């Protein structure tokens, strides 16, 4: 019998048919009887005190049903870092002060969206303008405007990571290089904008349909800020139109629709416009990076010192996590005998920066890989060789931080080296750049302070053999519903179509922290596997009794066949055993629970994915324009569960990361985003996509279900760095300031020319 009967075989997602027939009902599509429509009034100023809000004219406007302002809230400052009170700093509906353009100050519910929008114009807000500050390096200066009382010099969070003797390391180094980098911001651009439908009933129960990555987080945060009991809040999220890190914090649509619904006892729907989405949700954290790196002549890494100043925006959000992770992944995926990182997150009067796919690692990887390429050049070393020489390896411990159990980085480098060689000599102004990366499989940290297990699952086997699988994880398109069903089917020994998955509803699903930080496959996957194993054990008890095998025989189930492992032909039908088992248990279906919380796995994550990406580009020297030609990735994500889903994840990550590298940006003027629409904000389109190729390097991750670990998020890490290295090899200039626009390339080329001549 082959190793696996379900996993490692490509299947289309279990919710695929609903999606290709237009039957999938997203929050955006939810319509309830008597439903009202809400709109949110937002601050036009980056920093101002709210002196008075007069909504009397708006209230009288025909069709308006209700209005809420900060006065109608409990004034609770919330945040995801619940363990740290001072990092819970966002009220969502500001009472006294607004700190960025787009911050909500009032919300209206009306019979339709147009009426609500008209009413917004009738609300008069009296602001006292305050001096504002927009750049982190300005905001920490003496005398800069201060956003939050308790944050002197606007320093929000600091992080320090250190191991080895850095100062001695630099003494031992033959070559030391210093560089400053600027990593730009990026927007998630989920196709479904943030939206929610809240329905409060007189019994004091609040039901919220919303587009989210974590119904559990939203349930708790809503209960907290609304003064409700956790389980009087029900959050439903069946389909989510993209997340990418933007949808696991409490947002203005969820909060304002809930407030309005509680006030009016009617369902209220709020959908953010694309412009609101850009201006007033969250975004990738912009970073200023200083890197000082010491290496030996032969390229051996000896010391690295990194400092990051991140533009935090007005509130903490998940930016504190990004600050930590960027520092950790700055040292990835290499062995650094000594490393020191100081990260500062600084409040500024801009849209809060937070989590976005890669979670600080793309910024770190861009800087690190760009610098390594320059070092290799300086020392006349082969870019692949220097990476291979310093690569992490299985069993390596990142001192005091993490323990690497599986690591296929070397194999990835080998595969990419082969591909690069196969390209032969490139035409002029073409170049191949590469970047190595790694990423976590779910975070170990519990700043949210949940008393529950990080992941939990329930398996119930019905009399017809159909298996109900209850998970708390959220599928926002990454395909976790399918992955988890496959894990369940494999472990239980049934087929994928025997599984009926239940998710996206806090009333019926066990707790999972949600789909962020690449948690689901490993953490939720382990919980599912444990539940399935327990259900299987219960079934095998009956089977053993029935088969009464010689004591040396063990039983197993594969493809609905319960059999003796040593004599597969001797067995029973899964269906028959299920029927009898349930009859034998006085008619109770078989129910089993599973859970997972990482223990003794360091500070960051239980497991890490690794990979190397090579990007081939062409540069137009007279304009600086970049064209993507090829993108090849060698990737180690442990045991592959669904090859089809994996490929899609990797290709999608590459497209998003390439956008970060050379087309996407959020330019601002005095805190106002200048391109809050999809005309001026340039996401890659099909016409810009190069051919992509993915090499799977299979390793076995002892901590993961069937040896699986992260895939899909980590791949946003390498592309920007690979791009900048490709430009370097194509035309000999290195751009340290994202995004790599034609104008920047051209400027650099002119500089280079000047140097040559002068």
């Amino acid at each position, binding site marked *: 019998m082959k190793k696996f009967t379900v996993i490692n075989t490509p299947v289309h997602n279990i919710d695929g048919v609903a999606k290709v027939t237009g039957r999938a009902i997203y929050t955006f599509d939810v319509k309830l009887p008597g439903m009202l429509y809400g709109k949110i009034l937002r601050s036009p100023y980056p920093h101002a005190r709210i002196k008075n809000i007069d909504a009397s004219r708006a209230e009288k406007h025909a069709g308006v049903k209700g209005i809420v302002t900060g006065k109608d809230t409990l004034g609770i400052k919330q945040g995801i870092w619940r363990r740290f009170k*001072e990092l819970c700093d966002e009220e969502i509906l500001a009472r006294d002060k607004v700190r960025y353009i787009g911050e909500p100050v009032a919300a209206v519910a009306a019979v339709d969206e147009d009426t609500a929008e008209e009413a917004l114009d009738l609300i008069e807000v009296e602001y006292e303008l305050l001096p504002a500050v927009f750049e982190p390096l300005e905001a920490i200066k003496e005398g800069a405007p201060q956003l939050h009382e308790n944050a002197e010099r606007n320093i929000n969070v*600091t992080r*320090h990571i250190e191991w080895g003797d850095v100062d001695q390391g630099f003494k031992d180094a033959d070559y030391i290089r210093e560089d400053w980098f600027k990593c730009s911001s990026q927007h998630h651009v989920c196709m479904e904008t943030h939206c929610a439908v809240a329905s409060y009933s007189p019994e004091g129960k609040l039901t919220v349909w919303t587009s989210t990555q974590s119904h559990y987080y939203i349930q708790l945060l809503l209960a907290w800020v609304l003064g409700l009991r956790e389980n009087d809040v029900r959050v439903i999220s069946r389909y989510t139109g993209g997340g990418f890190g933007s949808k696991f914090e409490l947002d203005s649509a969820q909060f304002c629709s809930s407030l309005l619904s509680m006030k009016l006892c009617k369902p209220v729907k709020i959908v953010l416009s694309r412009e609101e989405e850009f201006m007033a949700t969250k975004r990738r954290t912009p970073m200023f990076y200083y890197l000082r790196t010491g290496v030996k002549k032969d390229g051996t890494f000896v010391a690295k010192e990194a400092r990051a100043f991140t533009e935090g925006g007005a509130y903490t959000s998940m930016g504190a996590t990004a600050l930590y992770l960027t520092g950790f992944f700055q040292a990835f995926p290499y062995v650094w005998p000594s490393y020191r990182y100081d990260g500062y997150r600084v409040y500024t009067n801009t849209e809060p920066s937070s989590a976005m796919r890669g979670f600080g690692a793309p910024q770190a990887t861009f800087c690190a890989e760009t610098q390594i390429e320059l070092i290799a050049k300086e020392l006349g070393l082969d870019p692949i060789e220097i990476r291979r020489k310093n690569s992490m390896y299985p069993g390596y411990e990142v001192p005091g931080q993490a323990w690497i159990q599986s690591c296929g980085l070397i194999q990835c480098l080998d595969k990419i080296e082969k591909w690069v060689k196969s390209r032969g000599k490139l035409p002029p102004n073409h170049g191949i750049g590469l970047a190595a990366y790694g990423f976590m499989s779910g975070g170990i940290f519990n700043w949210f302070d949940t008393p529950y297990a990080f992941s939990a699952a329930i398996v119930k086997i019905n009399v017809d053999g159909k298996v109900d699988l209850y998970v708390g994880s959220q599928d926002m398109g990454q395909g976790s519903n399918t992955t988890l069903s496959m894990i369940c089917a494999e472990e239980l020994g049934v087929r994928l179509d025997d599984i009926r998955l239940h998710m996206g509803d806090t009333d019926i699903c066990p707790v999972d922290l949600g789909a962020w930080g690449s948690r689901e496959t490993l953490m939720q996957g382990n919980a599912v596997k444990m539940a399935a194993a327990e259900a299987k054990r219960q079934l095998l008890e009956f089977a053993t009794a029935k088969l009464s095998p010689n004591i040396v025989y063990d039983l197993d189930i594969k493809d609905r066949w319960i059999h003796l492992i040593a004599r597969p032909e001797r067995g029973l039908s899964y269906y028959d055993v299920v029927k009898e088992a349930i009859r034998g248990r006085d008619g109770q279906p078989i129910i089993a629970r599973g859970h997972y919380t990482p223990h003794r796995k360091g500070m960051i994550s239980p497991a890490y994915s690794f990979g190397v990406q090579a990007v081939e580009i062409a540069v137009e020297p007279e304009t600086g324009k970049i064209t993507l030609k090829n993108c090849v990735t060698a990737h180690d994500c442990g045991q592959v569960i669904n090859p089809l889903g994996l490929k899609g994840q990797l290709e999608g990550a590459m497209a998003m990361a390439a956008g970060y590298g050379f087309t996407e940006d959020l330019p601002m003027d005095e805190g106002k985003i200048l391109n809050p629409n999809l005309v001026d904000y340039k996401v890659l389109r099909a016409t810009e996509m190069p051919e992509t190729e993915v090499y799977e390097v299979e390793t076995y991750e002892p901590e993961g279900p069937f040896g699986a670990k992260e895939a899909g998020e980590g791949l946003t890490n390498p592309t920007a760095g690979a791009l900048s290295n490709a430009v370097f090899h194509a035309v000999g200039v290195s751009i340290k300031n994202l995004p790599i626009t034609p104008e920047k390339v051209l400027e650099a080329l002119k500089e280079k020319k000047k140097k040559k001549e002068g």
Partner: protein
Amino acid sequence: MAYKCPVCSKVWPDTLDMARHVFGIADQAHKNWVNSKGLNFIELLLIQTMEPGNKGYKTLAELLEKEAEQVK
């Protein structure tokens, strides 16, 4: 040998680790304690990033060396 944080009594193997904890938590209580000892919490943080050699943390660690109670 270990050290007890004079503010929250959390125990740390050495004072540099404790300095990390103090800066990391960075709540009002810890800030106030540092400032009450004649150092400037924010200045220390900024020195740390403006000058090489781990200055900020070392300075705080030295203070903690003196102030923090040692525990077995």
